[in-house]
């Protein structure tokens, strides 16, 4: 066969770049290959042969809209209570535009006070937490609740496996 007579079969670069060929290489050879790749890419990369332009410090902003120039008001308006929601919106949007009041005033009047909210949350966490307890813990909780005389069962004792007696 002709193969015996040929020299070592030369593998193409693409083949060498494949992952299974690179596992056997050491880090240095890998770095070399990467650098060669970068060289190839950068040589093929087209670039403009122009002198470097210094970007002027731009202190002028070009703006095509009239809104920031003239500080125009909000476009929806209502008068004499024709549409109360729009009137509320007018106050909100115009104060935002004028930036006199920085506070956005999104807080609606609270139906429930903060303290009551905190109280409810405390009990809520317990109630929902019970749902995710394991059966063993749930059983313990129940016993604790029922035990009014505070005769706490020593729950520290781990229940070991008792060999069934013959």
């Amino acid at each position, binding site marked *: 066969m002709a193969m015996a007579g040929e020299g070592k079969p030369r593998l193409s670069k693409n083949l060498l770049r494949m992952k299974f060929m690179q596992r056997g290489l050491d880090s240095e050879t890998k770095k070399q290959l990467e650098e060669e790749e970068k060289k190839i890419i950068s040589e093929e990369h087209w670039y403009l042969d122009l002198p470097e332009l210094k970007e002027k*410090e*731009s*202190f*002028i*902003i*070009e*703006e*095509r*809209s*009239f*809104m*920031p*120039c*003239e*500080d*125009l*008001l*909000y*476009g*929806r*308006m*209502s*008068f*004499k*209570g*024709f*549409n109360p929601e*729009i009137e509320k*919106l007018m106050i909100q*949007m115009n104060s935002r535009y*004028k930036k006199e009041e920085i506070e956005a005033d999104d807080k609606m009047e609270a139906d429930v006070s903060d303290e009551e909210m905190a109280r409810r949350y405390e009990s809520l966490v317990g109630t929902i937490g019970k749902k995710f307890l394991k059966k063993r813990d749930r059983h313990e909780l129940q016993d604790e609740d029922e035990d009014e005389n505070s005769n706490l069962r020593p729950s520290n004792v781990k229940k070991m496996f008792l060999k069934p007696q013959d």
Partner: protein
Amino acid sequence: MAASGLSAEVDVGQVVLPGDVLLLPAAPNADGERLRLGPSSAPRGRLLCGPGLRRCAAGLLVTKCGLLRHRPPAGAGTGGGAYWVDSQQKRYVPVKGDPIIGIVTAKAGDIFKVDVGGSEQASLSYLAFEGATKRNRPNVQVGDLVYGQFIVANKDMEPEMVCIDSSGRANGMGIIGHEGLLFKVSLGLIRKLLAPNCEIIQELGQLYPFEIVLGMNGRIWVKAKTVQQTLIVANILEACEHMTSEQRKQALAKLSES
């Protein structure tokens, strides 16, 4: 007459023509009214170059004819004020961020085609309404009026508008109700009406209870309790562009009597 590089010494409030070059002063805080030759050191703060003006090598280049306006900087050192040209036109060119009134002309799958008075129809996605999801579509029909703002508006692409703001809230945008009257005015009048202390709007507001939506594309929608009141408000708004303030006050006084 040398066309390029001819510096112009113009006062704010004067007529400027396309092609005029306005040079910026060295210290805008000192004397911002008169634009004159100055050394090319950068002024403090950033200058806002509004519609009708473009940046050029020497300073600002005028591209529209009209009156030159200037707004001095608001706070000390927070920006360098604004210059723009106050011109008059009736044809609207879509600009990003402008609130406008559009008329829905077609429904094409997931988007609505909206006529905004520009050269192209704007597209409005059905998800761009407050609380709209794929299952919960907004109830928009062909012929409805929508109040929204542009998010994409340049000369290379089809304009796109939305009816929510960046945080997802409507803020009064969306479908405008069925009754009422839509009419068209010039763009300069809209800006005059939306100016911070507009007498026309304040005087009209004391006349009847009514609701009004002003779009930057020259469209106004008015709704009042009766058809007659709606028509009166519409006529006043159309006519007040060419009336002096005394004539307007006389007309409103006559109306409030009757």
